[in-house]
């Protein structure tokens, strides 16, 4: 008899990332880390077959290969055309974050003062344009109070308290989800603050509270994140990530 393999936290995170794209339709899924990449590909193989995915360089993939693998292509998407897609709104990006605050402001640029930071990261990258133009979600592999902080040092991704309701240029702003190693969150709390949608099995509200620098709405009443189905586990383990890259990103 074969021992049943226990579902890992990483696999639960992959499924939670797949659900970011539920109902997304025929848009470009742009995941920026392994777990959300696996999520996007899992969504494409299950409920969202019309998603566009790329090789992360300039090619649009026709099939849904394993992480790190290429395959037949269906189109061309060099960087300059990515900016056209961003402006069109037909995209959902899942970015990483060095910091996120309760209103969804995100930083991946630097820590400290703007003109003389204490630590330099990437700069703002595409975060300002992404968040103003199309759905944006975040993936945080290590949920900690350093990431989920009261105030971000530099606003790259725009949060809800920075939206000017009188300026229709902000009308496409939407932060859809934050998925972490501890749970799934959105910004449907009071005044568009961060709210718990679900906590992963085995994670307590106290653990999340201890690892977040601000109060999260509906934390004590959040249900459990759903477990992967047998089909999803097979797709993740056998097809999309046979080498277990996911388990290196989340233990």
């Amino acid at each position, binding site marked *: 008899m074969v021992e049943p393999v226990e579902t890992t936290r990483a696999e639960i995170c992959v499924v939670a990332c797949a659900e970011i794209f539920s109902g997304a339709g025929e848009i470009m899924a742009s995941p920026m880390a392994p777990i959300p990449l696996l999520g996007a590909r899992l969504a494409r193989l299950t409920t969202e077959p019309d998603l566009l995915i790329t090789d992360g*360089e*300039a*090619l649009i993939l026709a099939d849904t290969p394993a992480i790190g693998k290429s395959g037949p292509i269906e189109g*061309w998407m*060099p*960087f*300059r055309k990515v*900016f056209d897609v*961003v*402006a069109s709104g037909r995209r959902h990006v899942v970015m990483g974050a060095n910091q996120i605050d309760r209103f969804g402001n995100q930083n991946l*640029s*630097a820590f*400290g003062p*703007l*003109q*003389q*930071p*204490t*630590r*330099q*990261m*990437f*700069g*703002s*990258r*595409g*975060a*300002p*344009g992404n*968040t*103003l*133009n199309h759905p944006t979600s975040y993936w945080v592999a290590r949920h900690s109070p350093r990431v989920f902080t009261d105030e971000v040092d*530099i*606003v*790259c*991704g*725009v949060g809800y308290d*920075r*939206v*000017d309701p*009188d*300026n*229709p*240029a*902000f009308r*496409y*702003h939407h932060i859809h989800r934050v998925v972490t190693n501890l749970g799934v969150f959105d910004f449907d709390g009071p005044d568009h603050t961060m709210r718990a949608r679900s906590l992963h099995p085995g994670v307590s509200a106290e653990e999340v509270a201890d690892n977040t620098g601000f109060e999260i709405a509906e934390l004590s009443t959040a249900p459990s994140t759903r477990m992967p189905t047998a089909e999803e586990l097979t797709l993740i383990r056998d097809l999309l990530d046979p080498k277990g890259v996911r388990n290196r990103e989340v233990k």
Partner: protein
Amino acid sequence: MTPAPTDKTSTLDDVIGELRDGMTIGIGGWGSRRKPMALVRALARSDVTDLTVVTYGGPDIGLLCAAGKVRRAYYGFVSLDSAPFYDPWFAAARTSGSIEAREMDEGMVKCGLEAAAARLPFLPIRAGLGSDVPTFWEGELKTVTSPYPDFDGRAETLIAMPALRLDAAFVHLDLADSRGNAAYTGVDPYMDDLYCAAADRRYLETDQLVSTEVLVKSVPTQRLLLNRMNVERVVHTPNGAHFTFAGEYGRDERFQRFYVESAKTPEQWAAFSKRFLEVDEADYQRAVTEWQGAQEDQQ
């Protein structure tokens, strides 16, 4: 008799001789991808200084920061594209406060180059609103309100991205002729044509200098990114994009990691500089080949 067309082939020294302190220089490529590194190395070892650099930054701006050439930087990001990702010399320039950062969204760089290419003072863009980008620009970045109200009667106020006018542009293309026609052979043209279109003086380095006939037969027509109107000088620099990648060669990941490691102490950097930076391009390429050989032997 028809007069001969202009032969634009030049040396790196010819290019550097045309540059002046305080210029604004746009550098093509993207991160650690098809950067005009031979031109960057020549600029880094020249006397030219006090530069404003416009770039999708990688080790190009890193090397210029290491040489103390940069006063102000306009960039969407700075990345080495592989571990450890953050360029050590750009980071050192930022944390010491020695450069003025005009950080922006990646799409704003393209927008600013397009404005300059079309000789427009600005182009409207949504990216940047609500973020700290305007704070970085310290009053230099304004908004513009649409004269056309929306369907609901409200007018949109957008970022008025100013034209990124360049005194000079550096780009690296895989193939070129002596007149300034040039093509890329990889998967992405990046923004190299826009950098040239935004600049007064356009400097092209190329891995392969070929006849016009060979150029146009070597690639599909759509890859002919630059025409003669967009180039002043052509420099033949085989492996010139090293240690970033170009059409015919991959990124030299080991050398890039060595560059990052060498930035860790003044002693290591002095050794790196002496061997790879205080030398001309031919000696650089020889030193790299020798270094690669030593790495292979260690394997």
